[in-house]
């Protein structure tokens, strides 16, 4: 049994502490918005100049001037603020954003991240990914464990152009939660029904299994959305 994209987002959300300032990338990361623990105050940052992004706008209430960086219509929470791109990237590059959840093409055993350009891609684009990878202390990758073709994305060395070297702290996938440590990758959690061996089989880089390695605690469903598959 593995996690759905929403399941990965749910699992990430559990780890965001109260008072954190979190940037969410396009794809699985932005899904985290829906699973923030209601008992914690967490501020979502969008690099186009919003801090305190709330739930998506309800149909019929979209305001054309309130979009997040994933180009979704959003609301703001009480205490939100608006600013320009210069201050927004001061927050990122200056180390003020405490957490960044970002997608990845490849992650290496030493925390190298490749997420902006597939080798041989036709039109490159980088957006704010490099600023986040260089600027944010707690950089969490949220992605599927393997490619559409079933190939590992967690490698000994990245083959795609790097976004930043040695920047990833944790990897959340549909199969596992892996921590990047100075001694290499540490398997902290495994999806229900999977074994450490099964995760390793889908991972090129060697995994050490944590002494307290446990099952990923994700319910099967949350508010009608499937979290496991």
């Amino acid at each position, binding site marked *: 049994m593995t996690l759905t994209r929403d399941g990965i987002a749910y699992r990430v959300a559990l780890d965001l502490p109260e008072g954190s300032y979190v940037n969410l990338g396009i794809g699985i990361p932005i899904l985290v918005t829906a699973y923030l623990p209601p008992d914690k105050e967490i501020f979502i940052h*969008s*690099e*186009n*100049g*919003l801090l305190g992004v709330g739930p998506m706008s309800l*149909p*019929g*209430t*979209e*305001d*054309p*001037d*309130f*979009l*997040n*960086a994933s*180009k979704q*219509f959003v609301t703001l929470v009480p205490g939100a603020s*608006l*600013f*320009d*791109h*210069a201050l927004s*990237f001061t927050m*990122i*590059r200056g180390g003020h954003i405490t957490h960044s959840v970002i997608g990845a093409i490849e992650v290496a055993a030493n925390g190298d991240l490749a997420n902006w*350009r597939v080798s041989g891609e*036709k*039109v*490159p*684009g*980088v*957006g*704010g*990914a*490099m*600023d986040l990878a*260089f*600027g944010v202390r707690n950089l969490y990758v949220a992605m599927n464990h393997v490619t559409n073709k079933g190939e590992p994305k967690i490698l000994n060395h990245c083959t795609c*152009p*790097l*976004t*930043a*070297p040695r920047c990833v702290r944790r990897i959340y996938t549909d199969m596992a939660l892996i921590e990047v440590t100075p001694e290499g990758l540490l398997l902290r959690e495994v999806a229900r029904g999977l074994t450490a061996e099964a995760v390793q089989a889908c991972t090129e880089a060697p995994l050490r299994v944590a002494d307290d390695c446990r099952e990923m605690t994700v319910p099967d469903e949350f508010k009608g959305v499937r979290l496991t598959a």
Partner: protein
Amino acid sequence: MIDKTVASCKEAVADVFDGATLMFGGFGDPGVPGRLIEALREQGASRLCVIHNGAGGDDFALGGLILDGRVRKLIASFPNSPRAWAFRDRYLKGEIELELIPQGTLVERIRAAGAGLGGFFTPTAFGTELAVGKETRIIDGREYVLEAPLHADFAFIKAHRGDRLGNLSYRGAMRNFNPVMATAGKVVIAEVDQLVPVGALSPEEIHTPGIFVDLLVEVERDPRLFELEPPKRRSAK
């Protein structure tokens, strides 16, 4: 009396010349000076270099300008949006040059130009493909890349409200690159949703002081950029 307003976008963009470098504000649709860019399509200047976060969308504004073959070079951070098919087509044919810059470096380079700085050291992109050929330096144990200011002959920006002195205020996520580009263009042209009398904007709520703005024009929003009538029913039946 100072009056920076002009009657039409056509008049506002009249002086753009062939080969000019332009900045366009906006991120996604919010804050894009769509009417000004459409007027530039009509105006006809070509071989343009455009500085913008993305590569425009569909056949509107920057997308249309690229479709028309008027842009020689694009300086951007995220030109690969699915809607930027006009750019993709020309880029793959080798008909447009691309300078790709991390988003934070892009805005900081624009700011450096506006602030009269000669360049800055940023950690972003050190050791990556986007820093190839750039000067690097280790400062206090951390690795940095030297980046140069980005100037433009013209900056097109969009604001929500403005007065005849050029004072501007933005709404929601419209601000993005606009206030920074307003400092960095030799000629700065703003389109606003609403022209208001001097004094209607309080000194504390002015985001772009008029000193940075040369011309402004009141426009109705182009429906392709969503009209401003919240709550807006975009997901129509």
